[in-house]
């Protein structure tokens, strides 16, 4: 909207004068507008709302606002009533939501309505009844008055002179030394955040002779239990779910066992470390340590659900896609005298994500 479209009586005095002058003098004449090519166009004219001119409309708005506040009050009362009346375990069917808790639904609905109506009433009140006249408020410079500035600088100079910081160099230097050293105590305290990992990242519970225990049945596995195309999860013998350290230990020792026809195993070491095609791999992704067991039995691929790293279990769990940097560590397994699957030692490399000192 250009200033020409605005009725003159609505423009600020100066602006109105400029426009009028321009119109009167026409092209080429010297006018105040030429001196200020980017003159402030001023505010657009104020227009009245229906409520400003029609008292009946204003009354209607007032009633709507009051109605919304009243609905809010009723909803709050309904909230309290629902809290008291509806049992915690009652379930109802509500069409798009399905079988949901009646109490949750009632509390959420009533509290939502109570809060919404307060907000909606306030907004309606502000939009239709409160004054909507545009007001311009001039900005002020942020710089302080010259006298104040002078006083502050003078005070600072006097303070510096009186402290004799420039003259007594010994005091200045030792003070800087003290201030530099003090933060070191905070740094030293960081050491107390926890014990050092030492070689815990390099070892798991697996060791020579430990039986592979089926996570489902809690029984040691025999080679005949593991069918081609099946997927089994195992934990080391002696680790029980109620053990204090169970979560810490299983996070490193979790094992995924699959059976692949020996002639389909491409990696020589994998075949050597397997037993009749039964291979045992760490279940912890080498990228950031997610449990990884989305095993596709026809392709022998294992997919990590977090970042889609894909490993080929028939080829030494080589990374074939995704951000993982290492193949999954394989556990060397064999069969003991009683015919149970057992570990032939710990993993030869750290399980899970790479870390600083891993090298």
């Amino acid at each position, binding site marked *: 909207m250009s200033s020409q479209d605005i009725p003159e009586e609505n423009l600020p005095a100066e602006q109105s004068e400029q426009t009028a002058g321009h119109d009167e003098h026409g092209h080429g004449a010297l006018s105040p507008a030429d001196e200020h090519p980017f003159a402030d166009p001023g505010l657009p004219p104020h227009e009245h*709302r229906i409520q400003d001119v029609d008292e009946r409309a204003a009354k209607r708005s007032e009633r709507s606002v009051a109605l919304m506040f009243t609905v809010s009050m009723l909803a709050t009362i309904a909230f309290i009533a629902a809290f008291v009346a509806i049992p915690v375990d009652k379930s109802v069917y509500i069409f798009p939501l399905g079988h*949901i808790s009646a109490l949750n639904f009632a509390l959420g609905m009533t509290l939502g309505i109570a809060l919404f109506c307060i907000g909606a009433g306030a907004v309606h009140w502000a939009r239709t009844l409160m004054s909507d006249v545009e007001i311009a408020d001039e900005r002020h410079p942020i710089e302080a008055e010259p006298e104040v500035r002078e006083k502050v600088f003078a005070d600072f100079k006097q303070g510096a002179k009186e402290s004799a910081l420039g003259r007594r160099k010994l005091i200045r230097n030792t003070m800087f030394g003290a201030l530099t050293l003090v933060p070191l105590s905070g740094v030293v305290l960081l050491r107390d955040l926890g014990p050092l990992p030492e070689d815990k990242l390099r070892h798991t519970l697996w060791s020579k002779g430990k039986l592979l225990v089926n996570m*489902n049945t809690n029984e040691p596995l025999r080679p005949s239990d593991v069918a081609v195309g099946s997927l089994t999860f195992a934990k080391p013998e002696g680790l029980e779910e109620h053990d204090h350290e169970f979560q810490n230990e299983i996070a490193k020792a979790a094992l995924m066992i699959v059976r692949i026809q020996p002639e389909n195993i491409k990696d020589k070491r994998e075949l050597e470390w397997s037993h009749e095609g039964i291979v045992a791999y760490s279940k912890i992704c080498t990228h950031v340590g997610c449990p990884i067991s989305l095993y596709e039995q026809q392709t022998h691929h294992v997919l990590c659900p977090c970042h889609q790293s894909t490993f080929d279990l028939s080829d030494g769990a080589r990374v074939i896609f995704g951000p993982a940097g290492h193949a999954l560590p394989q556990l060397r397994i064999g069969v003991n005298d009683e015919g149970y699957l057992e570990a032939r030692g710990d993993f030869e490399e750290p399980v899970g994500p790479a870390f600083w000192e891993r090298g």
Partner: protein
Amino acid sequence: MKKLSARRRHPLAAVVVLLLALLFSGGLYAVFAPTTKAEADESAQSLTIEEGKRLYAVGCASCHGTGGQGTSDGPSLVGVGAAAVDFQVGTGRMPAATSQGPQVPKKKNIYSQAEIDQLAAYIASLGAGPAIPTEEQYGPQGADIAKGGELFRTNCAQCHNFTGKGGALTHGKYAPDLEGVSPKHIYEAMETGPQNMPSFPETTLSEENKKDIIAYLDAVNSSKSESPGGLELGGLGPVSEGLFGWIFGLGGLIAVAVWVAARTAKAKKS
């Protein structure tokens, strides 16, 4: 002998030979059968197998070979067992379309249960494999839902999501949503490992465990399962919830903020 040889091309010759063979095998069985009951079962069984073979020749042989030995278009069916047939045909996955994508999808089953049983009997006769489970094996009686949840999270949730809503795998493959899959088919899928799903045989996941898992799925992912919070957004977890929050939640707030500050209705046009 010559008379017999002359009629060997008679249209009914095959049927006669078949009948004779059936009679012969039936007769042999009758001689060696341990009980009379088994004898009755067996002759009914061999008829079923014959019916199944006929159905197989029409619907399956083009990909899986005339004797179930498999071709380049379909794997061998020797030893897959009746349970695999009941699952694959019962869920409509088999017979598959000739040009399938990365995974054969579930579709409308075109066979009756009797026909599926005949096909299953024929495939089972090719080599021993898991049998079709009985209702006693997969039924909900005596199942432990909590234990089932634990087992589901250990063995199944990585692909099928914590409540069996399914999820994506590599190269367009996916783990399907388990809602509405019949308990029998869930049991068979665990037993046989269809397509890229690994199997969970009796030796590593017992019948009791399977029953618990089925009961858990029935509790959390069926039309009658409860969702106390409501508005599950597909039950897919943080991805769909975050998307909803950012787009509809924040988007709604921005839209309301714009509306609140917008010009109000005026008494007259300027």
